[in-house]
């Protein structure tokens, strides 16, 4: 998931009796599966929760360019380079649709970017892990995009119309991303001994961070209940994580790779795999700025924004001059 630990009202879900008549009518629309559109009345808490979630999701797409961009110039073949460029281009495009969806809630893209740069908004914890060998690019497509798709497919049914529609478009492109990732993993896992070693190393490093993408366990996720009640979230963190594990284990087996969890096993009774939870203390450290790459990622984004200031100002000034000349000519 590209949005984790999204704060909601923090006050718990109101009972129908505690709601105002407007809130009750709003909740009835959500419960009936209706989509909420930008001009519709909505509780302020709903608007703010969505801004945080969509903003975090957009930032994740933008920051997510960095770990993959780290390998574009070292991609091993022309085809791999082209595919990776196409993928990163898609991700920047996803960032754009998501910022547009957030703008329908009354916040500008520049405001959201400022919040990110000031450290007041987050992006997915996964992008604070480094890409150290070429198989990491495969693992990102396979595991990270795989986890993201699982959540984004659920978000196609989210209650806010512009967000749901952005997700439909994004999901179409994400399935191509996951396939290309798995394709890299197959080449590596069935390649030379060194390539297989890279593939296993990538899986070892990305397995638990991928599980963390779904956010903390439901029992520790204080804001989830409100987001579920409002139909912003349509699947709990633990449901998503279980679904991801169940889908991924056979894929790893096919590759002949070992998932770094000695306690992973099929539970006949539950009809699911049992698995070890990620180390949540590591997750909270990463979320709070102490992941392996947090400082580098933010420094790269701030530098890009600062170095680009003269370009943005130049383009705006030219647009103003052009408009003035057009007006003078009329």
């Amino acid at each position, binding site marked *: 998931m590209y949005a984790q630990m999204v704060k909601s009202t923090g006050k718990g879900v109101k009972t129908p009796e505690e709601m105002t008549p407007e809130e009750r009518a709003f909740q009835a629309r959500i419960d009936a599966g209706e989509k909420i559109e930008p001009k519709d009345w909505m509780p302020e808490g709903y608007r703010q929760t969505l801004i945080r979630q969509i903003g975090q999701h957009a930032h994740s797409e*933008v920051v997510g*360019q*960095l770990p*993959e*961009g780290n390998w*574009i*110039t*070292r*991609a*091993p*073949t*022309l*085809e*791999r*380079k*082209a595919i990776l*460029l*196409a993928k*990163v*281009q898609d991700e*920047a*495009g996803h*960032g*754009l649709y998501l*910022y547009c969806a957030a703008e329908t809630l009354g916040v500008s*893209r520049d405001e959201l970017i400022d919040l990110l740069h000031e450290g007041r908004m987050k992006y997915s914890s996964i992008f604070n892990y480094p890409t150290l060998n*070429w198989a990491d690019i495969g693992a990102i497509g396979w595991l990270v995009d795989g986890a993201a798709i699982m959540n984004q497919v659920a978000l196609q049914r989210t209650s806010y119309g512009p967000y749901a529609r952005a997700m439909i478009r994004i999901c179409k492109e994400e399935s191509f991303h996951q396939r290309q990732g798995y394709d*890299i993993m197959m*080449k590596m896992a069935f*390649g*030379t001994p*060194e*390539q297989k070693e890279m593939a296993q190393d990538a899986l070892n490093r990305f397995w638990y961070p991928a599980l963390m993408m779904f956010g903390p366990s439901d029992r520790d996720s204080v804001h989830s209940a409100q987001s579920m009640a409002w139909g912003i979230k349509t699947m709990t963190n633990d449901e998503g994580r279980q679904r991801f594990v169940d889908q991924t284990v056979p894929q790893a087996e096919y590759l002949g790779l070992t998932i770094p969890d000695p306690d992973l096993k099929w539970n006949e009774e539950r009809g699911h795999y049992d698995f070890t939870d990620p180390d949540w203390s590591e997750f909270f450290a990463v979320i709070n700025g102490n992941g392996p790459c947090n400082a580098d990622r933010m420094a*790269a984004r701030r*530098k*890009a*924004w600062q*170095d*680009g*200031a*003269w*370009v*943005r*100002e*130049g*383009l*705006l*000034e*030219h*647009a103003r*001059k052009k408009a003035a000349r057009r007006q003078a000519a009329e």
Partner: protein
Amino acid sequence: MSALFEFLLRQGDNALVLGHRVSEWCGHAPVLEEDIALANTALDLIGQTQMWLGLAGEVEGKGRSADDLAFLRDVWDFRNLLLVERPNGDFGHTMMRQFLFDAFNLVHLTELANSTDDRIAAIAEKAGKEAAYHLERSRNTVVALGDGTEESHARMQAALDALWPYVGEIFENDSVSDELAADGIAPEPASLRAAWDARVQEALAEATLRHPEGDFAHRGGKTGVMHTEHLGHLLTQMQWLQRAYPGATW
């Protein structure tokens, strides 16, 4: 090395090296729309590389693929213009380099679409559509930043002045181009200069940029005689996996 093979390497290496340079911007552009546009330009150029170097390998007849040519040749085998291996500099520098190249690429590909070699004509036809779009974008960016703020104007003028000594090489004829021109395969580079000048002068005027004086030209890229020091570092990065793990399939 046959003249046709060398010509195809020039085409492929220009696209490859410039595509690599542009791809270095990934995630670092001034605004999200530019990240998308730069990735898109790099992607087109890598696609063009596959076509030109693919044909080069076929013409050479030694069983080398486009990947073999891209990843397993050393600096002296590369035949790209010095212009495209110049480091990115700031965004203005990158876009000025792109504009100077795009204007040439479009004029050149338009002529190549009439090549007596059908395979070249087919590639030129496809690549020409992309080059037209690239030129529209790089031209408009050069105009906007040239005619933007005082700072953006100064940066664009500095970029133009720094890159100008790399323009002359584009239009130099040599034995390779003489042979291809005689067979109607490719135009003489010098014959494209007037059309290029017209496009460039029009844009620079609108951008309020001063046309550089002097025609001093660094040369040695497209003949492979003397590349800049920058190309070796670019190849070190680009070719690393193929060199470190020879024979692997990726």
